[in-house]
């Protein structure tokens, strides 16, 4: 992939030095495994195996994986261990090792201890010092999430929400898969929303914010439960920030949306694909020819460049 001939801001609609139209154009290349880096408001893109990518080191670089569904063994993917291992291999092949990994939930398929153990074992081979989790609805079956919190929820509040800082970036893990109401979508609940408001109250508005949760925090397709009933309240607490990135899973395909200062992004699953909204009678696992499966599974890389608050979000498949 060659560098654009003119490295300058072409569109600056929000007067913040961010060329969003160019950013979205760059993200369209993401499916081929490109690394897009925002530096000084200008986009540069590198193929993941381009040596120049090594010098695109930024302020923060991490990987998001999602929906490993360990324990699933139906025709859509009879070996979810193998595809999770393939995702770890991809992470190991990155030119810059990620500082940490975010897992946005549905770690297990049936909340069984052996399923969680298996994921932990496979992730040990990843080149990241830490893995941070949020639960999916498949991780909190039977016990209101007690086992999930025992394994991954030390130092979290309530159902397992928490925040932490990395290199000047404030990351917030939210839980929207508990106490779901009949006919409803995902739910954060008032206790968590109050915690969130307090958590960000004294942060400077130039602090880059990353929010991660399992079910999308914007309404993608309500008929299939792809949305969160009370996400608007959560996002209202983040209005003051210049850069907010929301990372979600649950829908087993990549989607993105930019709304003001908020960029929403969903990741692929490492286990099985799901249909696009409305393109099937239900959001169940999609069976594809075996040789196509890995091209529909994937992981996401996120980079923040020093001096700039916009994050580059790049997806690559397992093919």
């Amino acid at each position, binding site marked *: 992939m060659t560098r654009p001939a003119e490295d300058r801001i072409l569109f600056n609609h929000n007067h913040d030095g961010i060329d969003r139209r160019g950013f979205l154009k760059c993200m369209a290349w993401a499916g081929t495994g490109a690394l897009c880096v925002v530096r000084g408001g200008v986009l540069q893109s590198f193929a993941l195996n381009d040596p120049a990518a090594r010098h695109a080191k930024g302020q923060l670089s991490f990987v998001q994986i999602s929906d490993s569904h360990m324990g699933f063994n*139906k*025709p*859509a993917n009879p070996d979810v261990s193998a595809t999770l291992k393939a995702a770890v291999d991809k992470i190991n092949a990155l030119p810059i090792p990620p500082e940490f990994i975010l897992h946005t939930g549905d770690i297990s*398929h*049936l*909340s069984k201890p052996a399923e969680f153990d298996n994921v932990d074992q496979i992730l040990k081979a990843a080149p990241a010092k830490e893995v941070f989790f949020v639960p999916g*609805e*498949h991780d909190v*079956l*039977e016990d209101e999430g007690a086992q999930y919190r025992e394994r991954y929820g030390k130092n979290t509040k309530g159902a397992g929400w928490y925040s932490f800082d990395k290199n000047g970036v404030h990351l917030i893990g939210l839980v929207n898969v508990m106490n*779901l*109401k*009949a*006919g*409803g*979508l995902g739910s954060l609940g008032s206790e968590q929303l109050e915690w969130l408001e307090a958590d960000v109250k004294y942060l400077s508005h130039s602090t880059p914010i990353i929010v991660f949760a399992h079910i999308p925090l914007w309404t993608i397709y*309500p*008929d*299939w*439960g792809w949305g969160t009933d009370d996400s608007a309240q959560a996002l209202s607490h983040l209005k003051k920030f210049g850069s907010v990135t929301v990372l979600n899973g649950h829908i087993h395909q990549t989607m993105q949306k930019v709304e003001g200062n908020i960029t929403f992004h969903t990741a692929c699953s490492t286990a099985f694909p799901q249909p696009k909204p409305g393109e099937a*009678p*239900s*959001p*169940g*696992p999609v069976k594809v020819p075996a040789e196509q499966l890995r091209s529909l599974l994937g992981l996401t890389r996120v980079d923040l460049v020093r001096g700039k608050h916009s994050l580059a979000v790049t997806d690559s498949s397992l093919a």
Partner: protein
Amino acid sequence: MRKFQLSVTGEIALVLLLTATLGLPLRWAAAADTNPSGAEVSIDNFRFTPQEIKVKAGTAVIWTNRDDIPHTVTSTDSVFKSKTLDTDDKFTTTFTKTGTYSYFCSIHPKMTGKVIVE
């Protein structure tokens, strides 16, 4: 050759047997709705089918998960709640009191159903 001849008792017995056999399919057809031996709901494609089922008080309803994803059967008024049902797992509960019982899948809450007990 001896003529085959039923005795009177034998003929009556034969008639009764035929009647019973003919009557049986009708009773089986009604079983899904009103037979106390069980009414069935199938879970497939993120749906409860039939979504609304009418049964007489004292009937057991049996849910079978035929989907390739786990689901639960959870009453909205905390009257009953199944364990997580994987593919081919079943859940049964007997409805002794009349009324309308709404339920949903606690994992995929957009899936809803109703049992109307008469």
